[in-house]
Structures are given as structure tokens and as C-alpha cells.
């Protein structure tokens, strides 16, 4: 089953990161990718996202396209990155999510991806 793994975190933590901390976190994410591959799960589909200050929200009302600055929902935690993982079941997805570095100071949301649109 495919799962979208959404990585949420406190923007304050990222705002004050030193260069070394950023590099260390990057290395942790690389190590996570390696660990997932060892368990037979590919992490190629996934990336970090630019901060919510760069987000744009689009909606169409009465045929008019409305564009607003900022993310859809203003929350304390921001969506900082994502993966799309093909896992055996939810237990494997939870196990991998727990290994994502962002799980330690933020939280990970797991969303199963719809595969059968005929059902």
C-alpha cells in the first residue's frame, strides 16, 4: 500500500538552526533513506518543502480564481516535508515514520493513498 507521509514541525526550531545543525539533520534524513531501503522501502519520492511563508493558496469561487498568500491552514506546526512510501501495511508505515528525524521534535501524519478509484 502506498502512504503519504507528512512531516510537521515547529517553524521556530528551523528558524534558529545553525549551518552545522542543518547539515546534521540532512545527514539524519540520508541515514533514514538508507535504513528504509534496507527494509525494502524506497524513499526516492519525497522532499523537504520551503517554509509556509512561501505558500500560496488557490480556490475557485463563482468561476473566479482567488489566490491568497500563505498556507491553507494557519497552525503552529508547519508542513515541512513529505515522502511517498510503498509499505506492506500500516504497521510498517508507522515503524518507518518513527525513524524519520522530524518525528523527534515534530510529528508525522500518515495518509493512505487511494489506489482504486473504481471502488
Amino acid at each position, binding site marked *: *500500500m502506498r502512504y503519504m507521509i507528512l512531516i510537521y514541525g515547529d517553524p521556530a526550531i528551523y528558524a534558529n538552526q545553525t549551518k552545522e545543525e542543518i547539515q546534521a539533520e540532512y545527514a539524519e534524513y540520508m541515514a533514514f533513506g538508507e535504513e528504509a531501503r534496507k527494509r525494502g522501502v524506497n524513499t526516492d519520492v519525497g522532499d523537504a518543502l520551503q517554509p509556509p511563508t512561501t505558500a500560496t493558496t488557490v480556490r475557485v469561487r463563482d468561476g473566479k480564481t482567488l489566490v491568497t498568500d500563505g498556507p491553507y491552514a494557519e497552525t503552529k506546526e508547519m508542513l515541512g516535508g513529505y515522502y511517498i512510501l510503498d*509499505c*506492506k*501495511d*500500516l504497521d510498517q508505515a*508507522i515503524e518507518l515514520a518513527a525513524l524519520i528525524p522530524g518525528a523527534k521534535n515534530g510529528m508525522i501524519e*500518515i495518509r493512505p493513498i487511494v489506489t482504486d478509484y473504481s471502488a
Partner: protein
Amino acid sequence: MNHPDLHTTIEATFQRESRKVIAHLITTYADIELAEDALQDALVEALDHWQRSGIPANTGAWIMTTAKRKVIDRLRRHRALQKRLPMLVDDNDEFHDDEPIDIPDERLRLIFTCCHPALSQEAQVALTLQLLGGISTEAVAKAFLVPLTTMEQRLVRAKRKIRDAGIPYQVPPIKHLPERLETVLAVIYLIFNAGYVSPKGDSLIQTDLCDEAIRLGRVLCDLLKNQPTVGENAESLGLLALMLLHHARRNARTDEAGEIILLEDQNRALWDRQMIDEGIALLDHALGFNQRGIYQIQAAIASLHAQAPSADETDWLQISLLYGSLAHLSPSPIIQLNRAVAIAMAHGANNGLDILEGLANDKTLCNYHLYHATCADLYRRANLPEKAKRAYERAIALCDNDREKSFLTKRLIQLA
């Protein structure tokens, strides 16, 4: 000709025998709704067939074979389900076979699915009662005091989440077993307490919930014992012991009018000695594994009460120490409340009041009627009637159970 009795017998036999069948169907086809529908079809056929030809010798095998045939029927009828037909091919030979078949016991896998942490606790409880207890949605709704439609929606949503999120049907690997088992035990204990506390509910259904929780506890202990990678588990045995030791007092807990009788005032001759003996034996066995846990400690406390000839002759010192270690393992103001009572019994009301007064600003306790009722009782014993009166009044104001309210009111009047 009508056979109302036979009809009831068939339904009861079917319900009892189908617990293993439903677990097997669900884990085989990984589709709860399909399994339930097929079992319902099989019940219809059983009512017809068994009334005419009698109840078969091996009812479990009969239900299994029929239900599997019904699964195939349903898959053929619904085109959307047809792509799943290939996975049934292996089972085809069974359908022409009238030999008794041994139904593999998949209930342990199903318990862990029903109590998966990705489901809300409400959903865990409802699923466990329905899929492992075979209890109807109506009865589950009634027991948990929610409208039938709410309970129906809760169950449907939970079953869909299991399917759509890919919650597996498996006994978790050993390294995750302790935390996953903790969830299962919490669900069983919650079912038991829903019956024990009897919140404004129908008393018949409430007793059934206690029996059902004890049955589930027994099944869990047996299944773990027979699972080679897991084996017997101290806390599961501890929970079963705890439930038995509490349930042993069921006939002494209320009077004819349904009013609550406190432990100290209960007629101990009404306690179920056989159940107490079983609970104590289970607890001794559990303690032998040397893995302390909250259920074993609570069972130990209950066993000291069960062995005491009267409230005064209870080993309150030991009980207060056990509450101390319980508070250490699972810090909670309610446990502190119980510890204060034990200390008051062991060392005098004033010592208990020292602890209770220290808890006065606790957010949970200050709105909890039993906190104020306990304070009131200790003030009464410490000969402080004014303080006792105020505490009783506060307890009565906060209490929403009529029987407990009338009990507290009686105590308040006795004070004057």
C-alpha cells in the same frame, strides 16, 4: 409449524460457535464487512436447515463451510469484488467435503487488529465487543450510553479505517508486543469497568459486560499461552485475576433496592469464594513471572480485601504500600486518593487527610465527587462534623449517579 424455542437455541448456538469462524473469515479475506455479511447469510441458512434437519454435530465446521460458500456467492454477485476471487481458489476443495474441519484460531490476530493504536479507544472497545464478543451493535450502544446511529457510524468508520489504512491482521512482533498488549488490556478493563461502575445503565446489560470482559480476558490468556512466540504474560493474567476478584463481590455490592453498599459494610458471606480462589491462584501464577505491572498490583490489593474477614481486619498497611508502588508505576490523582484511604485505615484519619488536603487543588480531583465524599468520610471519622458537612454537600452537588447521590445524602443526614 413454529419452533420459537428451537429458533432461539439455534441462534444462541450459532452466536457461540461463530466467534472463531468470524475471526478466521476476517483474517483470511481481510474484509470485515464481507465476513460479517457472509456470516449473516450463513445464519439465515442455519435457521432454515437446522430447523428441518436438526443441529449438526460439528456446528463450527458447518458454519465455516457455509460462510465460506456465502463469501464466494457474494464475490460473484458483486462485480467490484470479483477481482478478489483468485485468492479463494485454494479453498475450493473444502466445499465438497463433509468431513469435520478444524477451524484455525485466528482470534489473537483479530484482537490486535481491533485494539490497534491507530483506532480511537472508543472504536477499539466497540470493535472488540462486536467482533470478538459477538455482541450486537444495539447492545454495545446501550452499554456505552450512545445513540444506536452513533455506534453504527463509529463501527462503520473503524472498519473502513482498518481496510483503507491497511491496518494488518497480525500478532505484533515481540519488540512491539508490550505496548500493543497494553492497549488490548486497557480495552478489556474498560469493558469490565463499564459493567462494574454501572453508570445509570440497564443493570442486566451491565453484568453481561463484566462477564464478557472476563471471558475476553480468559480467551486472551489462553491464546497467548498457545502462541509459541509469545507465551504466558504476567499482566494479562494479572488483569484476569483483578476482574475475577472484583466480580466476586458483585452480589454484595448493592442492596435489594439497588443502593450501593461500601466495601466495609458488605456482607462478606455473599462474596463468591470460588471466584476469589481462582483470582488469587491466577495472581500467584502471574507474580511468578517477576514482571511487575499495574494490573498485578491492583489484583494484589483486591486479593488482600478478599482475604480479610472484615474491613478492620484488613492489611491496610500492605494495601497502602501497594498503592504507593502503583502510584509510582502509573502516577494518577485517583490512585493517590485510594492511597490516602488506605493510609487513613492503617494510621488514622488525620494521616489520610494530610494527603487529601494536599490534593485539594488537583484539577481532576476538585470536580470529582468521590474525592469530596472521601474527604467527608475522613472528616467524620476525625470528628470534624462541620468540615464533613461541607465536603458531603460538595460531593452531592458533583455526583450525577442517583444511587450514589442518595447514599451520600443519607450519610449527610446521619451526620446531624
